[in-house]
């Protein structure tokens, strides 16, 4: 960004001051240079509580420019509280254009989903990350997990998958499913459903992960190898749905279960609201034509 512009909100462009953005960008560059490695950064207080996406917001603030088009999703939806407020926040402090269409966006901040519409080169996907350390619940000592990352000691990660199979007969981990990035670092992909894990593999978009409370940034550069961990006799599998989306009829997308009444009525609909709505609009056009 060339000029320092003050927004109507009386803050610097995109809320953070320029020095802070430089600091975050340095962390991002380092993260891109070492795919999957958690880079510490001096996370700031943001005008929202921890757990609401303070890490993602800081990363977005550091990479967004006046010409960017921002999309924010929360569990795939553009119209939930978290998504609406973060979108409004950046419209106010950066006066950037916003959209709900995946294809139009240049920066997409996400909580817990990857859009169904394939991402392309030049797009940036910013994940909100609650707990960046995939080994946290197996090894609580941060000093130890850092050593394990440094020495590539990832046997423990398979202990977790072993436990899954031993207790459930299959790998029951369904979200935040650990991946190995570029054949080196094991990484927590944030709590996205494992359905989305294959989308990270060789994605043409840049993927950035920000954890505000934990003060960590990590990244997957475009076209990077991302493998989900598994066993030879229990290979990685994504969730399957028996029915298509009840609204748009899409198959091979991630569905949310919606409870309709207290008599067991339920329906399964797309979790990605933008994808669902554009499919419905397309279908209407076709029937009209």
């Amino acid at each position, binding site marked *: 960004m060339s000029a320092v512009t003050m927004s109507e909100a009386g803050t610097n462009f995109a809320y953070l001051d320029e020095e802070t953005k430089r600091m975050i960008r340095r962390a991002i560059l380092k993260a891109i240079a070492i795919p999957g490695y958690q880079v510490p950064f001096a996370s700031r207080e943001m005008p929202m509580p921890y757990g609401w996406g303070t890490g993602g917001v800081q990363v977005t603030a550091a990479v967004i420019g006046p010409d960017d088009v921002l999309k924010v999703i929360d569990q795939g939806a553009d119209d939930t509280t978290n998504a609406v407020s973060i979108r409004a926040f950046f419209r106010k402090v950066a006066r950037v254009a916003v959209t709900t269409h995946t294809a139009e966006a240049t920066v997409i901040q996400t909580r817990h989903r990857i859009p169904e519409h394939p991402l392309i080169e030049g797009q940036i996907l910013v994940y909100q990350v609650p707990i960046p350390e995939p080994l946290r619940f*197996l090894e609580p000592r941060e000093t130890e997990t850092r*050593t394990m990352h440094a*020495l590539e*000691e990832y*046997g*423990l990660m*398979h*202990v*977790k998958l*072993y*436990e899954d*199979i*031993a*207790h459930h007969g299959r790998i029951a981990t369904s979200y935040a499913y650990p991946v190995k990035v570029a054949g080196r670092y094991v990484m927590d992909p944030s709590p996205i459903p494992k359905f989305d894990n294959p989308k990270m593999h060789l994605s043409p978009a840049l993927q950035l992960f920000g954890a505000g409370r934990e003060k960590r940034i990590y990244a997957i550069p475009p076209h990077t190898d991302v493998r989900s961990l*598994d*066993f*030879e*006799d*229990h290979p990685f599998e994504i969730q399957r749905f028996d029915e298509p989306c009840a609204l748009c009829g899409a198959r091979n997308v991630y569905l949310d279960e919606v409870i309709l009444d207290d008599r067991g009525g339920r329906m399964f609909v797309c979790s990605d609201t933008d994808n669902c709505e554009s499919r419905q609009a397309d279908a209407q056009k076709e029937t009209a034509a």
Partner: protein
Amino acid sequence: MSEGPLLIARDVGKNYGNRIGCTDVSFDLWPGEVLAIVGESGSGKTTLLNCLSTRLNADRGTVTYRMRDGVARDLAALGEAERRFLMRTDWGFVHQNPADGLRMGVSAGANVGERLMAVGNRHYGRIRHCAEDWLNRVEIDVDRIDDRPRAFSGGMRQRLQIARNLVTSPRLVFMDEPTGGLDVSVQARLLDLVRGLVRDLGLSVIIVTHDLAVARLLSHRMMVMKEGRVIEQGLTDRVLDDPREPYTQLLVSSIPQA
């Protein structure tokens, strides 16, 4: 594999500030040999064990270990990655308190399988089969394989810890008071088990104990420590039946006789 000692310690010493943890300890450990380190509390046994197993850095002296490829290496010169690899493949460490050596939050099977997964085993069925096999060998019912060690008795936990250590066929196992805190009948069973495993697998063991009965049952050779120094060492029956040093005589005579 009879080219020489497995582990050679020369003038090993460790200070805690001005206090001596242990000092001037030298010995050779041969393949298949069980060495007991005995002495009262505070005599430096555990400090010595930790220095030998690289859990602590010794201040003085050298410890040399003959690796699986037959090359003797100075342990202090190993990189951290090599050292940690050694500790989870060719070595075992049995803690006095099983909770220190086990992962209490995961099942018995995962505890045994962890080392296998750490060295790259990625086949669930084979890992599980191996875990079952080892639970059998340490006399834990195979139907407890999915239970967490929290649900195990002290003796079972200790046996599980041993299984977890032996699954990668280590050549050297360090044991720190493995029978401490167990009641006498459980102790006897555990000692029997360890003795059987040592014999069957040809393990070398360095065992720290204050219990001379344990030393007598398990070890071929023993070292008696006092105030950080080895005051007497020799064949176990020689030291126990014919102690030379007054302190050793005192120790031996303090065993309650039935």
